[in-house]
Each structure stands twice: as structure tokens, then as C-alpha cells.
């Protein structure tokens, strides 16, 4: 069984607070794209202790609690994995969309798909 990742734990705590990504980011003025990447393990935990404490506070983690310790421990491990965070090719293929909700059902072209592919790599 895969061990718990920092991003998984972050998401678990946010869901425990009953906040959607949008509600969480609106309430605490975080960038939703960055938080989504953090939760999906595509961004490492921040190095800054101040930022980490901001996140912990927003997630309702009390200083010195077991949750606090786990939160910071997982963050430390996440930072060690820094070089492994890009999507591998087989993972990328799993992330490719087949059905698109497009404006006025406009047809897609190969050029558009190439651009969408680049976007998915960065998302």
C-alpha cells in the first residue's frame, strides 16, 4: 500500500473542514491552481515555515497536536521527492480527456489538442 503523501493529507484535512477548493481558497486567499497542484502531489510542500503555518491554521490544525506533527512530517518527506513530481508518460495518458465540454460544441483540431496537451502537462 502506498504511504500517505502530503497532498493527500492536505486534501483530507480540507474535506474534513467541509470546504470545497473554491471555498477554501476564497476564505484564506490562496491560489486554487497552486492548492490543487499541492494536493495532487505536483507541487512540493512550501519550504517557508510561515507559509506552512498559514496552511495548517487554515486547515484547522492545532499547533503541537498529532495532526500538526503529521502535517509537518509529511511536508518534510514531500520536499525530498522534489525531483519526481512531473507526470510520467503513462500517467499523462491517463489524464487525457476524451469528451470535452466546449463552447458551442466547437470542433477540435490536432493543433488545439497539442495545445491542450501542453496545458495538461502544466495543470
Amino acid at each position: 500500500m502506498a504511504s500517505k503523501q502530503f497532498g493527500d493529507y492536505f486534501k483530507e484535512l480540507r474535506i474534513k473542514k467541509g470546504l470545497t477548493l473554491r471555498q477554501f481558497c476564497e476564505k484564506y486567499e490562496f491560489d486554487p491552481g497552486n492548492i490543487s497542484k499541492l494536493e495532487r502531489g505536483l507541487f512540493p510542500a512550501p519550504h517557508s515555515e510561515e507559509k506552512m503555518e498559514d496552511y495548517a491554521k487554515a486547515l484547522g490544525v492545532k499547533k503541537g497536536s498529532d495532526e500538526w506533527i503529521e502535517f509537518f512530517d509529511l511536508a518534510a518527506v514531500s520536499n525530498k521527492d522534489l525531483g519526481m513530481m512531473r507526470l510520467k508518460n503513462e500517467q499523462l495518458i491517463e489524464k487525457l480527456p476524451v469528451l470535452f465540454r466546449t463552447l458551442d460544441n466547437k470542433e477540435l483540431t490536432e493543433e488545439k489538442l497539442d495545445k491542450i496537451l501542453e496545458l495538461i502537462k502544466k495543470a
Partner: protein
Amino acid sequence: MAIKFIPPAEIEAAADSFRREWDPAETIPVPILEVVELKLKLNVVPVLGLMRDHNVDSFLTRDLHDLVIDQEIYMYQENRARFSFAHEVGHLVIHSDYLKSLKIDSIEAWKQEVLGKGSGHAPMETQANMFASFLLMPTTFLKEEFEKQKKFVSDHPLFKQTKAIDDRALAQYVAKPVAKRFGVSEEAANIRLQNWLGGR
């Protein structure tokens, strides 16, 4: 696996069943963002410029784990985001077998699938839109709201002069309050009302 026709009644039953399973309290407006994020626990991936640069509102990744949505829509256009979420849930509920059956093992195979099918996927988009419409505006609640608004509008002097008011004509006058009640756009409410009244 072939793309198949799904009768509207079947799509409505799937939407009702999904809604009752994940929101047994039958809340209106249907808390679709909360259901998707807090109960189904799908990852939401907000992407800047998805609509502006690519004309794409949202999509579901092939592994069915991530819902990718234009960031502006997600953060600032709540009704549109709600419809997009409901639309993607439609794919998840009624098209997941089809999506799982696809053999895509390379970028080229993916392009072939998307471009090769071309407009072949269009009916699936229509089905997902129908699902979203049924999910966000369940018939029982829609009927109740329509009757309430109909009574309100009928009391207006403009309509008091008219003997028999056609429900479908009236629908356009009540679409705005109906949209507000269900957390959808006025256009989505009008389409749903017209389809419902036309099919009674």
C-alpha cells in the same frame, strides 16, 4: 464499444438516482460542487485560460479522478461552474463504461480517438447536458416552482387581460426566478422548462 442512444427518461432516472444517493436531504439548489468535491472526492483542477484560449469549459480526465475546469468559471461564475460539474458527473455516471473501454496507450492513439470520432462524440455531450439539466432541476421541484411562479405571474395585470395563457409562453417569463431557485443560468432554466412542458 459503440456510442449509444440513451432515452431521456433513462437519463433522468440516472440523474435522480445519483442525486438521491449523494444528497439524501434533496437540497435545492442541488449542492453539486460539495457532492463532487467532498463526497465523490474528485480532484478539481482549475486551469487559467482554458476557456479563453481553448474554448473548453471543463473535462474529466480519462482515469475519472480529476475534473479540469476553467479557473475563471470555477472561481467567479458559480452557475456556470455548477452546470459544468453536473455535466461532467453525467459523463461519469452514464459514459464511464465507454470511457473505460477505450484502448488509449499513446498520445497518437488519443488524438486519433478524439479527432477520429469527431462529431461522433457530440451526442454524448448532449446526453451529459441532459443529465446536468435533470440533475440540477429535478422534475418534482421544477413543477412545484413553475406552479408557484405561474400563479405569481398570472396575477400581473398584463396576464389578467388574457383568458388562457399558454404554459410554454409563460415559461419565458418565469425562467428568471426559476433559474435563481435552482442555481442555474436563465437560459438553462428556459430550455429545461420548454423541454418539460413540451413533453408533458
